[in-house]
């Protein structure tokens, strides 16, 4: 077996090496000046599965060190966007950079910076927790001298030290998620990409997963890009969120910015009813023209009016979910999320094995 059968990837790697140091200096990025301090930078990202335009022109920048939430209903295109950023899918249109590295041209360099936890539970059920993490240590070239200690620390960081030598098929869903987190952390990624990390988990397991993420982030200063359906989670844990719907980003900002912007808009536009905001604005809310007419004019959300007092509380404070209903408009409840989406989500909730 000679390395000559991997020509394509080899030159790709060689290219990575030469670009590794220099990319920041003279990156010949086309239009927008790529800021290497951005952990992720997407410009005009599009991806279509046949006729389905899963990602339809996404502009996004995730700042280094922040927890960035990508929110959206089933089929919004979150996973597809994530898979473009992780180099799993080619980027047919637009540009994606991870810490200044182009995902199309410097795949290996990008992958070395990433820790990725996919939407479905993906540990190898036939291996122990420790072996699962060790595989990723090997594959990221952790030296033999450091390997055992590093794996031990990754397992400890997610609270799996005691279960480390059990087969992963005996783990609960929450433990598998934490094991996957350890797999992603063992290579000291600068960007952690989590696709629905808490889906299908009970509230305690959800909190536990987030606590571990936050503890490691506090220690390492890594950037976290997370997708979720759970608006409350995003509100609580994310520095900034982007609301995605039908392949587009409909609103972007800190949770507080988005909520106060909605409050301002509601005040100016005399929205009737919808009294108990958090109380489900039933699907029949389409009967309120004000509500469903406003949606697509989401641009003001990107630069929310600073006049809006950031002090929450006061009158019926809107939740992030209300913001989402507002920007996504009607059709959020039943129409979106075809069978395939729901099925994939449910599969996620299953155990591995």
């Amino acid at each position, binding site marked *: 077996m000679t390395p000559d*059968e991997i020509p394509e990837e080899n030159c790709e790697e060689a290219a990575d090496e030469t670009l590794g140091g220099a990319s920041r200096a003279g990156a010949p990025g086309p239009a927008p000046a790529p800021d290497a301090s951005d952990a992720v930078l997407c410009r005009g990202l599009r991806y279509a599965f046949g006729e389905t335009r899963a990602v339809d022109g996404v502009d996004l920048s995730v700042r280094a060190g922040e927890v960035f939430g990508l929110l959206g209903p089933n089929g919004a295109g979150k996973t597809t966007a994530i898979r473009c950023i992780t*180099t799993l899918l080619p980027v047919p249109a637009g540009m994606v950079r991870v810490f200044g590295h182009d995902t199309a041209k410097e795949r290996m360099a990008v992958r070395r910076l990433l820790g990725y936890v996919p939407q479905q539970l993906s540990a190898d059920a036939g291996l122990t927790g420790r072996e699962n993490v060790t595989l990723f240590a090997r594959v*990221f070239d952790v030296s033999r001298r450091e390997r055992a200690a590093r794996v031990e620390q990754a397992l*400890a960081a997610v*609270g799996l030290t005691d279960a480390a030598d059990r087969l992963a098929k005996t783990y609960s869903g929450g433990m598998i998620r934490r094991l996957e987190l350890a797999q992603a952390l063992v290579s000291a990624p600068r960007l952690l990409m989590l696709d629905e990390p808490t889906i299908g988990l009970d509230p305690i397991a959800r909190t536990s997963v987030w606590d571990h993420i936050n503890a490691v982030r506090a220690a390492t200063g890594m950037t976290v890009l997370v997708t979720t359906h759970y608006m409350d989670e995003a509100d609580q844990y994310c*520095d900034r969120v982007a609301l995605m719907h039908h392949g587009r980003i409909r609103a972007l900002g800190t949770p507080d910015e988005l909520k106060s912007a909605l409050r301002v808009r509601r005040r100016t536009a005399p929205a009737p009813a919808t009294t108990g905001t958090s109380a489900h604005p039933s699907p029949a809310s389409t009967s309120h023209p004000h509500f469903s007419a406003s949606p697509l004019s989401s641009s003001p959300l990107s630069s929310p009016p600073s006049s809006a007092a950031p002090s929450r509380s006061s009158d019926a404070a809107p939740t992030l979910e209300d913001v989402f209903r507002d920007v996504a408009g009607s059709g959020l409840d039943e129409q979106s999320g075809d069978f395939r989406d729901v099925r994939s989500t449910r599969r996620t909730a299953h155990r591995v094995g």
Partner: protein
Amino acid sequence: MSEAPAAPHTASADARHGAGQLDLLLAPPRARTGWRVLPARVLAMCVVELQKLRHDRTELYTRAVQPALWLLVFGETFTRIKAIPTGGTPYIDYLAPGIIAQSAMFIAIFYGIMIIWERDAGILTKLLVTPTPRAALIAGKAFAAGVKALVQAVVVIVIAALLGVAMTWNPLRLLGVVVAVVLGSAFFSCLSMTIAGIVLTRDRLMGIGQAITMPLFFASNALYPVAIMPGWLQTVSTMNPLSYQVDALRGLLLGTHAHLALDYAVLIAAAVAGIAAASSLLGRLAR
């Protein structure tokens, strides 16, 4: 606020487990580069395979049943009726290398089917986001299949020895056997990974896998010499890498006349071609 990574939103932190020491997780490992990547990834995949075998040996045992029956029933019977011209060797001896190759091939083809399972389970997806070139990933899987087949081959060799097959114990020849088994399995696992990259679903691949294993077995010199085959079958047999693997195994284990140089050349070429084909289609599985 987003600039300050030191301030996680939950002040509660994680008292119970305590994140403990994280110092090693602060610095990324030093990247291997160039040719060193390939052997490192192959080793990683082979280690995983051995670990899995250590945890669950049932497949090893269940897969030993068929070769044992072939040797016991088919081998013993045909030894007695002397229907197949083997040039003086007892038929069961003649058959043993063929059965070793066959059971290795079955393992390898099934191993390729596993890659679809791993794709569906998200395991492959995650490996594809590591700094592993596709060809290195496929080569790793191919040699891991070889390792698994090798363990199986040892079982079959032991069974054959128990049935009284006279085989060599010359370590150099046995090393040659190891290489032949690993290369052959690498090819057949790549064959099934290539088909996986074309048909994309497990059900279809299962069907195709079932459909091709027996023809590959029968259209080779595993059961009978090429000389007694009809012309068209001889042609198929010369294109079948399994024939070269069996030829090498027979030559090494029994000391019969073999074309070792040609055998190894074909096996190496087949494995390399298989790795190239499977890795060029791997992207389809990732999508």
